[in-house]
């Protein structure tokens, strides 16, 4: 039975699914890279994703348009980012506590709103597959990379974009200085608080893209705790990637590949119980930690609030 699965077709299916579920983590990870580069951890990424997944679902259900769902989710993400930035950057509150608070808030609110707004289990329209002409015809690479919905392409293009912004533009370099040495940044005339606030805002908006991806592209219906820990996995990826938007791609794809294989096997009924399969991706992450953690160095002023002198 297992041999039948080890074919080229199976591998292509698994790789394509890997790329299709990657945005549920990728957007949030890229956003978190920017935010942490500037010195602010958002442990509430999961909360942002839960809230925006619901907002996107709710909006696209009532407008019949996933693009509207996405837009409203982005607006909500920006709003949460403003609040989170105000609390952690301007007031300098403990980033762990604010993040945990935001997460628990997100664990409760969408669930209540879902229960009071919908009586049955509704489904919504999602972004359909838009294969890229010619490129999607290439064997293997075509179906794996060029046959997805537009958000997948957007996520993939954001990787070099974030890399360029952080390493080759002035605002990006400002983020890095504020995360490494805010005092020096201040001395050089950078407004540390505003720079960090911007980074947090970008991080939160990108996290909301990941959240919205669940209900505007990946799934057609809403379920309780829809993100299932993927916000926290996004945080782990930032760490594995040593705060580089490019280096996090390998562990991220690895994790999603394991998860894809596991999801396909669950439907294939190979005699392994679903609960055993379920825990494999999480265990992979934990097992990888000691390997990827070697030589990792966080931004020097990470989680350290800056007080404007």
């Amino acid at each position, binding site marked *: 039975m297992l041999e039948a699965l080890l074919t080229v077709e199976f591998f292509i299916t698994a790789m394509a699914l890997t790329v299709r579920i990657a945005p549920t983590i990728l957007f949030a990870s890229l956003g978190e890279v920017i935010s942490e580069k500037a010195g602010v951890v958002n*442990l509430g990424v999961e*909360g942002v994703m839960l809230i925006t997944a619901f907002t996107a679902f709710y909006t696209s259900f009532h407008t019949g348009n996933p693009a509207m769902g996405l837009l409203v989710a982005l607006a909500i993400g920006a709003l949460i980012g403003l609040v989170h930035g105000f*609390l952690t950057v301007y*007031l*300098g*509150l*403990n980033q*762990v*506590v*604010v993040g*945990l*608070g*935001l*997460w*628990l*808030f*997100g*664990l*409760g*609110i969408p*669930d*209540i709103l879902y*229960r*009071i707004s919908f009586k049955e289990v509704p489904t919504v329209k999602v972004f359909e597959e838009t294969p890229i002409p010619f490129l999607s015809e290439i064997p293997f690479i075509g179906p794996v990379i060029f046959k997805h919905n537009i958000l997948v392409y957007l996520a993939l293009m954001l990787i070099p974009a974030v890399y360029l912004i952080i390493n080759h533009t002035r605002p990006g370099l400002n983020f890095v200085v504020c995360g490494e040495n805010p005092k020096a940044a201040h001395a050089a005339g950078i407004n540390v608080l505003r720079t960090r606030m911007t980074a947090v805002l970008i991080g939160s908006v990108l996290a909301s893209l990941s959240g919205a991806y669940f209900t505007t592209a990946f799934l057609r219906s809403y379920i309780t705790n829809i993100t*299932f*820990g993927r916000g*926290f*996995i996004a*945080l*782990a990826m930032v*760490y594995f990637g040593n705060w580089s938007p490019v280096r996090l791609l390998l562990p991220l794809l690895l994790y999603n590949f394991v998860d894809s294989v596991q999801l396909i096997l669950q439907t294939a009924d190979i005699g392994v*119980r679903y*609960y*055993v399969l*379920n*825990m494999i991706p*999480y*265990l992979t*992450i*934990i097992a990888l*930690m*000691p390997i990827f*953690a070697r030589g*990792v160095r966080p931004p020097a002023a990470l989680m350290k609030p800056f007080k404007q002198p």
Partner: protein
Amino acid sequence: MSFSYFFKLAAVNLGAVAVGLSLGMLIVYITGADIILAASTLIFAPLSDLYNVAEMFVWFTALMVIAQGIGLGIRAGVWNVGAPGQFLVGSILTMMVWKFLNPFIPPLPLTLLMLVGGAAGGLLWALIPAVIRSKFGGNEIVVTLLLNLVAVSVLWWALDGPIRGRFSAGYPLSDVIPTAYRIPSLIPDSRLSYSLLIALAVAAVFYLLAEKTHFGLQVKSVGLNPTAAKTSGIKVGWTLFKTLLIAGAAAGFAGSLHLMGVLFRMDAGYAETGNDFGYIAIAVAMLGGAHPVGILFSSIFFSYMMIGAQNMQRIIQIPFPLVYAVVGCMLISLTLVQRINRRAV
């Protein structure tokens, strides 16, 4: 801790609580429920009869024991968000100890062994994040959280194999622990057992550990300033390691108290029980200022609120997840008012 300081702290924390509760009421208002009825249910239902009072102390027992462990962690600067998983694994191990050893060991020593099994299960589940945090400097919050999700799968596996009941008829159910191996009931016709007294003893142990021992002092100094602690000769990694293990053991122990004193059997819903206790205990530890005595008070407050919320769900159909939103908001407002207070001093 002087009295005036204590009262000031209490007043500040009450401010944060008020913010959280007002948010909760706002949400209740948005859902269109009768807000007066909701508020009066929240306030009066927990004290309305003996059953509700007993239920309150059932929550108190679990929340307080778990929060003591989390509180010790906060003192050292580590965040044990893994209590739900540790609670589950502790309970599973308790069940396994009973199931596999009851033909060989008489009830009384086995009961003690079951309690030890619970603590050991929690400790085991905290071992992985403890190693990753202290050896590799990884983030314990992410690891403990992911392990909570793994623990749910472990529960399903256990219910499908090692602890599956003889009469479960294919359902994921364990056997019921017989009376001889239970913690005896404290109030008849309620779910409250002598677990409550054991929990209070645990609180006393944590008080002595945190306030009267050398280890407690080390924990405090690591939490205040790891660099300074290191230069004064404290092994920072080792202290964090031990703290996380103790926190895990406490959560696992709470699991065996709950299983042996309240539920007596495990099913798929046990995962939710663990989540409710484990996540809310973070807020309990925060509100209690991570102090063993403070946690005692904040556990009473939170268990009161939980019974209120349960009654709100039963009587006026306000979904229980509301408490998560309220607890999340309370956490944020707690740090907020503590900051304002520090500025004012």
